[in-house]
């Protein structure tokens, strides 16, 4: 499996990232990990395998409300209990022709980050190499990665700000790689009253893909627009223009909506590494003096998100 031309000892940091990426897609593994974000610690089991070229994955939330996410190829199912907040989200997110933009993961990463190897360590009773991904500017966060020496799988990661404060930690407690994955391992436990939501990776019909009328006059170096869309909010069915940007590792989304009837205020809300910044855009549209609400959400520093939000402008079609 994962036969590399380069042996583990000789890999460059870039080759390690690439190995990690492919291992996640191609390897068979079954493990339990914890994910710490903000003040919240979750524990989940992940099972992954490839059957006849189709990726199959199952993610099981082991604490709190029973939640499972099962993926077969491009089909994603969320299995939840009634009353779970996550249900409020729209069931389909059209990925559009730009979905692949993120599959090119790590391309251009070294333009925005410095990669370096820092010896070995042990995680989940496995030998790991340590890889630092340090941002070249203050507009994005850094990562410390522990990769399985044998397979390249990510055993632990820390998302850190410029001060070194850990904003998110992901870590496997146990991990089996390469072992047989059974149908039972991949089958959701459909408890009583379980609800299944399908999230399809479908391109939205072309007629709905009119171009959005907004753009960011400023984004940090290296971020490019990966996707845009006009969708409806789950709550009000109002049209919301959505722009998505990525620098290969970090991503942020920009949402622009007409000013809500109840009004809205500028706001900063942070949860772990994710920040949401709302700014009121006064008379942003050339056509009228309607106020808009711009919300930038992403794993980026607050000041960066604010600067982006303040740079959103209307573009005449």
């Amino acid at each position, binding site marked *: 499996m994962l036969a590399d031309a380069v042996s583990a000892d000789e890999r460059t940091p870039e080759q390690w990232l690439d190995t990690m990426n492919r291992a996640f897609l191609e390897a068979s593994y079954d493990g339990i990990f914890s994910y710490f974000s903000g003040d919240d610690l979750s524990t989940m089991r992940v099972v*992954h395998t490839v059957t006849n070229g189709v990726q199959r994955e199952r993610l099981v939330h082991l604490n709190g409300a029973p939640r499972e996410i099962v993926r077969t190829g491009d089909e994603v199912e969320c299995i939840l209990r009634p009353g779970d*907040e996550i249900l409020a989200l729209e069931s389909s997110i059209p990925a559009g022709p730009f979905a692949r933009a993120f599959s090119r993961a790590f391309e251009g990463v070294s333009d925005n980050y410095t990669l370096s190897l820092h010896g070995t360590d042990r995680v989940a009773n496995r030998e790991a190499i340590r890889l630092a991904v340090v941002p070249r500017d203050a507009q994005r966060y850094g990562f410390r990665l522990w990769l399985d020496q044998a397979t390249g799988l990510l055993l632990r990661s820390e998302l850190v700000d410029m001060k070194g404060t850990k904003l998110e930690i992901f870590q496997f407690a146990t991990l089996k790689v390469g072992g047989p994955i059974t149908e039972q391992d991949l089958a959701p436990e459909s408890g009583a009253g379980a609800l299944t939501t399908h999230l399809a990776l479908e391109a939205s019909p072309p007629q709905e893909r009119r171009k959005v009328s907004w753009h960011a006059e400023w984004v940090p170096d290296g971020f490019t627009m990966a996707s845009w869309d006009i969708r409806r909010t789950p709550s009000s069915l109002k049209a919301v223009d959505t722009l998505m940007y990525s620098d290969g590792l970090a991503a942020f989304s920009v949402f622009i909506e007409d000013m809500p009837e109840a009004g809205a205020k500028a*706001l900063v809300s*942070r949860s*772990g590494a994710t920040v*949401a910044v709302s700014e009121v855009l006064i008379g942003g549209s050339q056509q009228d003096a309607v106020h808009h609400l711009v*919300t930038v959400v992403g794993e980026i520093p607050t000041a960066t998100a604010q600067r982006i939000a303040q740079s959103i402008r209307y573009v005449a079609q």
Partner: protein
Amino acid sequence: MSEQLKESLSAVMDGEADEFEIRRVLNEAAGDPELRGVWERYHLVRSVMRGEGGTKGADRLSTRFWTQIDSGDETRAVGNSEPIDTGARAPRSNWMTWGQRVAGLAVAAGVAAAVVIGYRTDEAAKAPAAQVAVVEQAVPSDSIALFDDEMRRQSVPAALDLQRAHAYMLHHAHHVALNNRSVVPFVKVAAFESTK
């Protein structure tokens, strides 16, 4: 500018100021060009320190990155071997220690400070001081819950706004997850707290 105010600004830069201090600095900054000037200079110094680009700086940064792991978070040697602290929950610093940190290639002020004062671009500075509600969660060194008095009078803490922000966060997590074509980013979706 009073020494006390300098100290407050220093604390804000280090992300160690409490809510009252932050509010005071905010209010002062609204009508004090000198204070804003000082702030801007520090920002300039900081960005020069961070030396966007240049492998030397980057190398040192990445070394520090791991030094933090290896030596714990109390003090660590950086660059010219001056000890600095992480700012996480360090004892309150004074003006001088902040200056020393500059010399020691410290990365000072974090999100907290940027939120509070960095928000003020030239245009924003003309606006009334209290247009932003800051609700920072769960990042110990950046924990601020700041509502200006004027803001408080204008509206209740905007539950609707928060709700909307969280819906967008979930939406963003979803979008990233789907576009990554890997279940791993779904960790974020699955971990999304149901209480929000």
